[in-house]
């Protein structure tokens, strides 16, 4: 093995197969980084060192026997602490959730990762019940953005994003109800995919909003996300929200064909013309769009009807469904919730049953309108967020209910949406764009992002404070040299 840890699952999988590294060595190296760095970063709630090393040894033994179950065999991964695993408690960053929630059984998505030889390192930090803000008074790690610890890593899949960005895992699972994969992916400079509702089983996941929750992959690259999705996607008869829709071969599809024949809708109205959109975010997203245009895609200015209404419908839906789940505990155990969590959830009391039903009608109206949009374009490209990650002190969950939002409307419609890095602002904070596809269109979404990432290297950048020991630029140059496209250093 080289002295440097590979950054991507793709490169680690190759190293495991050409004998440059064993899973045991790779896993030990990642565990060493966790021990050295996570005290400052707060990405992990629980580290399952013994179980991870045992899984790594088993993966190595299987390689030695000639058994190769999947590109994820022997790859260190992390699971958001909202998802049940058999070897660690599921706590949802809460002092209210029943001890033993999940029954010591792997959620289907986790079981699928284990079944192909994935090495699960532990559980990653989330916001309380996936909706509060990090709380310094709670008995859980306080997550910090590795690019600048004074700025929010966003949430709620903050731990998986931080760990991936800092080389404390090669990827993992997040959950997304209104942006909780894409927000932290964007804020920490990694890639995250919110899947079509029902694409990945969500049983075994602490609910936030039962008609919106999704489990999705987070990793450095879109290709790595595709490798994870290849394993976790697919119907589970035990999950009533799991869709009986055939799965694609996502990694193959991501590398299959580039973007030459694709029409990419770049909506100005509501998205790029928002007066609240940060100028550097705006410029970064447009540069990404034009990079894809140079790669052969056709850019189309489209209108996404009812965007604001759909985002508001998502907020009403998720708050109402979350309130229904938490109401008894909020009444009886108010003080055991974090302040930001309980005050956000309590706002659902301002909505009526009629508001909830109307929100579901708006979701259907939006869904039908989007069917027309996707008749004229293959994907949409938008910003992930209005602004780069804000200073920690100014993070305000409630304020997000009143601003335009680029996450929740896609949850309202159940569509796949991916966040990918596209540069840095003048303060050195990550910029990110979002690719949105039609239902079950993950393959096309991943293909667009993979094409962009073979032309650029933003997704391979490592925060300076945690760079030591990672392959970083050396690996970047190897990857770019392997690409069939002309590298455009610093583009995007």
């Amino acid at each position: 093995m080289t002295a440097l840890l590979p950054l991507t699952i793709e490169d680690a999988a190759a190293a495991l197969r050409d004998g440059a590294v064993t899973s045991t060595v790779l896993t030990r190296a990642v565990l060493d980084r966790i021990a050295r760095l996570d005290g400052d970063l707060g990405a992990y709630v629980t580290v399952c060192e013994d179980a991870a090393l045992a899984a790594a040894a088993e993966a190595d033994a299987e390689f030695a026997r000639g058994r190769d179950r999947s590109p994820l065999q022997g790859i260190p991964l992390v699971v958001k602490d909202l998802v049940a695993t058999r070897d660690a408690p599921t706590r949802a960053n809460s002092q209210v959730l029943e001890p033993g929630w999940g029954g010591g059984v792997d959620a289907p998505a986790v079981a699928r990762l284990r079944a192909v030889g994935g090495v699960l390192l532990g559980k990653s930090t989330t916001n309380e019940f996936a909706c509060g803000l990090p709380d310094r008074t709670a008995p859980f790690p306080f997550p910090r953005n590795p690019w600048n610890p004074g700025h929010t890593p966003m949430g709620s899949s903050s731990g998986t994003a931080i760990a991936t960005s800092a080389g404390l895992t090669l990827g993992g699972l997040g959950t997304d109800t209104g942006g909780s994969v894409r927000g932290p992916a964007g804020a920490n400079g990694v890639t995250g995919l919110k899947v079509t509702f029902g694409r990945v089983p969500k049983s075994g996941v602490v609910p936030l909003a039962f008609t919106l929750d999704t489990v999705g992959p987070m990793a450095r690259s879109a290709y790595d996300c595709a490798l994870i999705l290849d394993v976790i996607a697919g119907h589970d008869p035990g999950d009533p929200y799991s869709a009986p829709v055939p799965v694609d071969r996502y990694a193959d599809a991501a590398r299959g064909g580039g973007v030459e024949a694709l029409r990419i809708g770049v909506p100005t109205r509501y998205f790029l013309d928002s007066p609240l959109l940060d100028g550097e975010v705006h410029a970064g997203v447009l540069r990404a769009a034009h990079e894809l245009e140079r790669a052969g895609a056709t850019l189309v200015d489209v209108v996404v009807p009812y965007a604001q209404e759909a985002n508001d419908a998502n907020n009403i839906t998720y708050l109402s469904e979350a309130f229904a789940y938490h109401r008894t505990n909020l009444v009886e155990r108010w003080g055991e919730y974090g302040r930001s969590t309980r005050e956000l959830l309590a706002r659902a009391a301002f909505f009526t049953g009629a508001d909830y039903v109307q929100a579901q009608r708006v979701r259907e109206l939006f869904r039908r309108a989007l069917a027309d949009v996707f008749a004229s374009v293959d994907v949409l490209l938008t910003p992930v967020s209005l602004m780069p990650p804000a200073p920690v002190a100014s993070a305000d969950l409630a304020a997000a209910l009143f601003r335009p939002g680029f996450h929740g409307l896609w949850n309202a419609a159940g569509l796949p949406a991916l966040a990918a890095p596209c540069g840095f602002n003048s303060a050195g904070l990550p910029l990110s764009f979002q690719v949105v596809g039609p239902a079950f269109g993950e393959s096309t979404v991943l293909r667009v992002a993979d094409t962009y990432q073979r032309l650029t290297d933003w997704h391979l950048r490592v925060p300076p404070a945690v760079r030591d020991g990672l392959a970083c630029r050396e690996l970047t140059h190897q990857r770019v040299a392997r690409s069939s496209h002309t590298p455009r250093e610093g583009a995007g």
Partner: protein
Amino acid sequence: MRAADHALRAAGLRLTDDETSRLAAGYGALRAKADALAALDLREAPPINPAAPPGEGGWP
């Protein structure tokens, strides 16, 4: 303030005055969001059914 306090109490929540004040500050804006959706004439339109399989109205 009174409407927000009434809604919170009707839901069974007993907040401090400070907490109620903080939440009440956003009451009007949240109600405006919900009322704007209500103004869309969708009385005869079906709601989304996210649990339905594809082709039966649940999926975009």
